[in-house]
């Protein structure tokens, strides 16, 4: 059906989307790169000229850079570990015949649809508030001292909040993958005397490998740019400043655009490294 006429028509039909995304990518991106080579302080003198790679080296050598990298890695790593492991276990469980499966599924998926600012504040106030929060009441009920969650266990608290939001995503994708597993293969293994643990490691886990990779890559891309959850809970205090949050503070709070832009370029490079792996998997899928 690819006549010349339909080909040129097809090109016209793609054009608006390509144009929109091209503008969206190129203009802001080149501006960020441009600013990153400038000393640019909008509130304190504006454009103060070219500085070469100074912003890049200053961003790396600033005292908040390495802690921010550490925090980012800790949050992303912990959330990935928790959501993938719990996700696999819950998916395995939900795959079994149970009563009320529909309702159970709905309840488990629900946190994913809660807007980030709401889930941040629910946890911060109604659960982690050290005087009136649910957990404080619970702690007092068993005779323990309530914990100042967001200041004394800030990272663990944030990991809890973010994992709660992303666990449904991992579970749902892993469940979809498990359900596509051929049950005959499992039955055959069972008849051959394979123990449940053996069946899990030699049949189910290899089958899930691709779905797990996809979950890890997609979550990493989203988790690297976690923002609202930190914004409404600790606002970057108590060692919860991630790379994204640090750049946000440099650019909008301290209005050091040059420095923030250099950070932005680092963030873009980092995200692209993860993206390359994801694109490979998706691209393979496109071929068949």
């Amino acid at each position, binding site marked *: 059906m690819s006549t010349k006429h339909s080909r040129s028509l097809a090109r016209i*039909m793609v054009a608006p989307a390509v144009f929109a995304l091209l503008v969206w990518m190129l203009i*802001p991106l080149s501006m960020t790169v441009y600013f990153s080579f400038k000393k640019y302080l909008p509130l304190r003198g504006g454009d103060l000229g070219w500085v070469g790679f100074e912003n890049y080296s200053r961003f790396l050598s600033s005292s908040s850079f390495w802690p921010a990298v550490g925090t980012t890695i800790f949050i992303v790593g912990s959330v990935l570990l928790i959501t993938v492991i719990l996700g696999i276990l819950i998916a395995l469980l939900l795959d079994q015949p149970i009563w009320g499966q529909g309702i159970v599924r709905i309840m488990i998926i629900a946190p994913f*649809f809660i807007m980030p600012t709401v889930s941040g*504040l629910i946890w911060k106030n109604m659960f982690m508030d050290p005087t009136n929060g649910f957990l404080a009441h*619970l702690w007092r009920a068993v005779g323990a001292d309530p914990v100042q969650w967001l200041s004394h266990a800030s990272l663990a608290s944030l990991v809890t909040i973010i994992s709660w939001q992303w666990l449904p995503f991992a579970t*749902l994708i892993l469940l979809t993958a498990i359900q596509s597993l051929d049950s005959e293969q499992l039955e055959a293994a069972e008849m051959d005397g394979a123990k449940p643990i053996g069946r899990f490691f030699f049949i189910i886990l290899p089958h899930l490998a691709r779905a797990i990779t996809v979950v890890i890559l*997609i979550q990493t891309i989203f988790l690297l740019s976690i923002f609202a959850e930190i914004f409404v809970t600790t606002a970057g205090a108590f060692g919860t400043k991630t790379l994204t949050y640090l750049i946000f503070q440099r650019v909008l709070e301290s209005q050091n*655009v040059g420095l923030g832009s250099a950070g932005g370029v680092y963030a873009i490079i980092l995200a692209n490294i993860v993206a390359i792996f994801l694109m490979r998997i998706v691209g393979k899928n496109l071929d068949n």
Partner: protein
Amino acid sequence: MARTVTAQRKILNTALSWTLAIIIFFPIFWILVLSFKTEGDAIRTPIEVLTSAWTLESYSIVQERSDYLKHFTNSVIIALGSTVLGIIIGVPAAWSMAFVPSKRTRGILMWMLSTKMLPAVGVLYPIYLIFIELGILDSRTGLVVILMLMNLPIIIWMLYTYFREIPAEILEAARMDGASLTSEILYVLTPMAVPGIASTLLLNIILAWNEAFWTLNLTAAKAAPLTAFIASYSSPEGLFFAKLSAASVMAITPILIMGWFSQKQLVRGLTFGAVK
């Protein structure tokens, strides 16, 4: 891979699943409870909360603050506007790539996906500056455009995977019967594409509704949607459990209901077709 299991196993699995589900769902259940309490009762111990009187007070207070409705309207306009605009641009693009693929189709699709990987914070200041220049900072127009661009790759990818499932033979048959291109699109393809377009619409409304980077950074009083409205409760003086709960319940309910209907599409849409 559901297999037959003994009744005993089924009871055990059911008990375990329900326990987990209740724990995971609990925070949402709890704000639902708190939203029907007075401010004084909402901060008592859980048992006292459950046994205290129920009231709609918080809802009417939140509702009376005229700005709640304004933020809700902003959310609806921004989420619907950006998604519909994205669909209008996305349908022709996905359509032509699915039915008239060229050598470049694969490259274009991958490139579109790569724009989704661009971390928002990396272009925060340029966008901020452009918005000031164009006079669309803190405007719904600006957010509609930005969220449309954010979700356009997902929209096109989802539509593309749906359109690819429409067998091309049907089109050929229609053409043999002398159907013109317009009637082919209108009467043959559209009815088959509607479910895919509807799912795409649904998932992207959810994503746009919950988007909380651009909505927080590019709005102030005027165009702030619910994400930003709720964030204003993060200051200590805004610490009212019952009212915050009521506002939260009102902000998440519509999307929670839509979300439950879009479970399947969620997997397809957010994995770019890599898991189906």
